[in-house]
């Protein structure tokens, strides 16, 4: 039941927010998001971390004659993703407080509505429900980006929209095919999909259908070109939603709907996917080095990070999968923090060009500290969150293949290069015209950054809090994959 | 008094087939060649009735009345179509003082 409440509360709250005129909407939205977070903590308290199966489940027929049911529930991986969503959304809402967007009620209603879609993706245990939620999550972000975005927003968001829809079409086709393969009166239940006995030929092409859909969302090289443009043009809150949470939909999709459904297809193509992912790591990192727009730089770094996660989960060993899960959390936290800091800098200086910034540390000590910590998390310094994920992921990839591991490890070096270059350009050196009168963080901004920084250290110091939640679920999936 | 199906069966089925095929073809050719909307409309009716005839004949020969149900449906649809269609034609005529379909080519690229 709690899962259903978690799923529908944001949508309900969105309707409520829609009714509010003026800037009061943001406060109501923030309150609703906090309630959602509290609900998710309540769900956590009712969750049995020893159990690897689906819990807190709810299942009733939806389109009965077709065997499609409204089936939701959570295992450890879903729960972590839901927690990430409910943790980040209030912060994302809070981070927008200093902006006065036009039509605020619509803006915040869309954010909340999107939360329903995101949570729906993470808790859906029925293929068609998953597909439905997948698209539900896309619509609000399209409008947020297309209405409140930058100059090129129409062209860029249109491309993003068509790109992802194109991907999901493949997913739908694969789901329909799988659905028709289920015995008896067909069903789209996830466990029925896991039990299908498909031959390797079928698995092979279904693998590609599903992979393209998820790869576009993540995005994995070479399906990534929508991403830097979209991140750059969207309003910061949309960028945070996209990079912090929506990107995880793709990875989650792989873990839930790809690996256990077509294990033979995976073993057939894992090498190719790993190579693509690793190319993405090096490629994204190298391109990030010379980017001058801060948002674009983080966008490319995100391609590199996601490449590593993708590589890790396709190794199908426990370090890789667990690393992937924990890195999803870490990446969500770090990237939201970094985009927020860029937003802060942009709102004060009106530029995101590294070359026209500099010397900010002299005026803004607190900002430097927060920025530094998030950056260190991002470059995987030990005792911050990024390290745990990268360590496990690289270890997984290295166990899969030494060469892949070594090449993927370049992210450690290149990550340091582009991040430090950025930090130096923005924070160090002499003040520029734009940064002359830079003011330090306000209370509101600190309120966003402090929870993020706490999580950076929490995951860095006590990753087992989270690893132990996902461990049984990961083991469970691995048993299914290896049966 | 003979039953209607029996009467129908006094003529071989092939005759009905050829006859309705001929009617249908006339309808098609009419639709393709004529430019007056009303005539085109009549030709469409002709095609529908060709089908109706065939359905009735086959139903009688097979002793299965379900095909005849379709005939009623087709008649109902045809009646509805005439209502809407004639109304459209009348409106068209009022606007362009003609019922020539060649003139109605505004809906293009």
């Amino acid at each position: 039941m709690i899962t259903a409440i978690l799923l529908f509360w944001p949508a309900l709250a969105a309707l409520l927010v829609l009714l509010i005129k003026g800037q009061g909407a943001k406060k109501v939205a923030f309150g609703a998001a906090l309630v959602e977070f509290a609900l998710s903590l309540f769900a956590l308290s009712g969750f049995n971390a020893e159990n690897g199966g689906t819990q807190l489940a709810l299942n009733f027929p939806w389109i009965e004659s077709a065997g499609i049911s409204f089936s939701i529930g959570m295992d450890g991986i879903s729960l972590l993703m839901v927690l990430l969503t409910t943790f980040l959304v209030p912060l994302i809402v809070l981070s927008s407080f200093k902006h006065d967007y036009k039509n605020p009620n619509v803006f915040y209603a869309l954010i909340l509505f999107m939360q329903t879609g995101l949570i729906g993706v993470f808790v859906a245990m029925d293929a068609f429900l998953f597909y439905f939620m997948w698209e539900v999550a896309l619509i609000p972000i399209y409008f947020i980006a297309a209405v409140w975005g930058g100059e090129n927003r129409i062209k860029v968001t249109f491309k993003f929209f068509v790109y992802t829809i194109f991907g999901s079409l493949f997913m739908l086709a694969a789901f329909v095919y799988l659905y028709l393969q289920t015995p008896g009166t067909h069903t789209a239940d996830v466990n029925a999909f896991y039990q299908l006995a498909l031959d390797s030929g079928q698995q092979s092409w279904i693998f590609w259908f599903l992979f393209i859909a998820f790869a576009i969302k993540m995005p994995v090289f070479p399906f990534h070109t929508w991403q830097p443009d979209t991140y750059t043009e969207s309003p910061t809150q949309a960028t945070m939603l996209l990079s912090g949470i929506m990107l995880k939909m793709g990875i989650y999709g792989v873990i839930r709907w790809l690996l256990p459904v077509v294990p033979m297809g995976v073993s057939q193509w894992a090498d190719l996917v790993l190579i693509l992912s690793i190319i993405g790591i090096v490629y994204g990192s190298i391109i990030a080095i010379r980017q001058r727009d801060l948002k674009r730089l983080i966008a490319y770094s995100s391609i590199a990070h996601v490449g590593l996660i993708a590589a890790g989960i396709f190794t199908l060993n426990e370090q890789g999968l667990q690393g992937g899960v924990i890195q999803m959390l870490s990446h969500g936290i770090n990237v939201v923090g970094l985009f927020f800091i860029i937003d802060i800098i942009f709102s004060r200086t009106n530029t995101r060009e590294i070359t026209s910034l500099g010397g900010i540390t002299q005026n803004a000590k607190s900002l430097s500290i927060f920025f530094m910590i998030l950056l260190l998390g991002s470059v995987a310094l030990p005792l911050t969150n990024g390290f745990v994920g990268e360590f496990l992921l690289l270890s997984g990839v290295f166990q899969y293949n030494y060469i892949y591991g070594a090449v993927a490890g370049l992210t450690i070096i290149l990550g340091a290069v582009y991040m430090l270059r950025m930090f130096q350009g923005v924070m160090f050196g002499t003040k520029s015209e734009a940064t002359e009168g830079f003011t330090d963080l306000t209370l509101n901004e600190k309120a966003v950054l402090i929870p993020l920084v706490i999580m950076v250290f929490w995951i860095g110091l006590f990753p087992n809090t989270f690893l132990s939640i996902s461990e049984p679920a990961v083991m469970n999936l691995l048993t299914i994959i290896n049966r | 008094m003979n039953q209607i199906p029996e009467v129908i069966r006094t003529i071989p089925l092939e005759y009905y087939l050829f006859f309705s095929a001929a009617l249908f073809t006339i309808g098609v050719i009419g639709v393709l060649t004529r430019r007056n909307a009303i005539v085109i409309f009549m030709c469409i009716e002709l095609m529908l009735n060709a089908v109706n005839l065939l359905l009735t004949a086959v139903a009688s020969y097979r002793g299965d009345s379900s095909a005849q149900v379709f005939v009623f449906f087709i008649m109902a649809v045809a009646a509805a179509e005439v209502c809407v269609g004639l109304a459209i034609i009348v409106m068209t005529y009022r606007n362009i003082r003609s019922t020539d379909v060649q003139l109605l080519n505004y809906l293009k690229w």
Partner: protein
Amino acid sequence: MQEIVMPLNNQGMALLCLLVPILPLLGFILNGLGNRKLAKGLVSMIGCGTVLASFLISIYLFLDFTANGSRAYMVDYYNWISAGNMQIGFSFMIDQLTLLMMLMVTGIGFFIHLYSAGYMSHDENFGKFFSFINLFMFSMLLLVMGSNYVMMFVGWEGVGLCSYLLIGFWNKNTNYNNAAKKAFVMNRIGDLGFLLGIFLIFITFGSVSYPQVFAEAARYTGGIDSNIMIAITLLLFVGAMGKSAQLPLFTWLPDAMAGPTPVSALIHAATMVTAGIYMVLRSNVLYVLAPTSLEIIAIIGVATAVLAATIGLAQNDIKKVLAYSTVSQLGYMFLALGVMAFSSSIFHVLTHAFFKALLFLGAGSVIHAMSNEQDIRNMGGLRKYLPITFITFLIGTLAIAGIPPFAGFFSKDELLAHVWEHSKVLWGLGMLASFMTSFYMFRLVFLTFFGTFRGTESQRSHLHESPMSMTLPLIVLAILSTIGGFLGIPAVFGENMHVLQNYLAPIYGYAQVANAAAVAPLHIDHATEWMLMGISVAVAVVAAIIAYVMYVSKKTVPVAEGSKLSPLHNLIYNKYYIDELYDTIIVRPVMWMSSALHRFLDVIVVDGIVNGFGKLVMQSGRSLRYAQSGAIGFYIMVMVFSIVLILFLNFFIG
């Protein structure tokens, strides 16, 4: 057969062990948050006090350890990362080597903190400085105390971060920032090697915890010099190369002199850069299983030692000379590791920490007095103005040059004796480096403290001996540099006098099991030993005399910037153009690739294909729309013919 690492069940002791790194961390947090709010006196109290406390606790732990039969023990705090069969504990291992490093790090660290309180007193970011340097202490202590390779890696990266923060401490200056970035990135290259080494250890031995890995390695059945062992040891060594500035990753260390001088002394001379030696020493059991790797280490060590020494000959910046001498001395230490003189290596680490910290602090005192002048061409005659600095600096120089009875003599002599036993060629090269070391160090002393003052008048008027907080550490370190060598008295002066070697013997327990032949004690007869000692002293003295003749008698002063130099001199002066070489073959191509990949591959090729699909759809729509003529007759005709076609196909093909 070997020592067994016991888990520690004593809560109090566990807390004490934890306090050693946590106290500096506390200092970091307090000073970091209180930067500019706290008074300078309080900041330095916190900064120095926490380190002093750590030092005292370390002494207590050491005494307790020896009193309880020198049994190594593990202190487990909690399970840090666990994923499947990979279990990484947050835990410490206390053994002989750890304690030695702890004492060295906290001890020297404390004196350098004390020195900093005076040296940095005029800096506006006093609190920031102390918080960073305290964070460094924390990381360095984690590095040496960790009980598994991942914990070592934690400290390893942590010290790298602090090094980055402190090199770029004066972050308004772009050159300093670039130096900081270079240090971090070069270290990260090494770190990648280290990390891969850890993964390979995990795959091979199923654990990353020292006791388990070493016990497994001692039972290792793959034989000596198996590929996997060579791979592990070389990967770890790549990490050491980065951290300890060995060829080819040494160029960051001289640039790192951009940081404040106490940082150079603590991080870039005494402690952090010796982490690589600590790591190899810690993994001695793995290395004895891979003699080929050791051979490579020896060659790289000696090459670094010679190369850095030659560059040191021509430098004019007082800190750069010391930096190259550090690189060169680190090369020595790796040379010693390469010839399996493990104890000699750590002995040299220890003595080097004393005298190099002393030299850097002395240099700092000179720079302080000279109002931030670092060029020795503008110094001279300073012994009159800075007597304490002069004497202590001279002691440091005598120690590094290897003049008895100062500390460097004992460690260097022992080290070279092992090298002699191993290979005469390496020994010859080592001697060459030793000769150059002595020469450039005495050149530095003579140019700085002898002759006449060559600086400006305003500099002369400001010359003053440094305050007490700065001279006290100098004096303490000078005493240590004088007597430190007696920890390891060579066998010619009496059997079993080598305190350090006896103390450290247990840490080679596993290595002895794994490859007994490798760790056999040195067999060198006394006559040879006397001879080697004689040669090394003679070499040092001759070099000193040459330097004296050149720079004191003939009063030569290195030529000013921009004058014409002989080709060889030019080559050395410009550090063999190695930085330029790296710039050409690595930095520029990567930068070029970054732009090219973005502009060409990303925007044109990949995005081009994506947009191409879009354009294709648009284009086909554009041309196909003319079929939409609007003529109903045409539509119907197409429809009819299509139906006919479908029926036709259905009949005759389907």
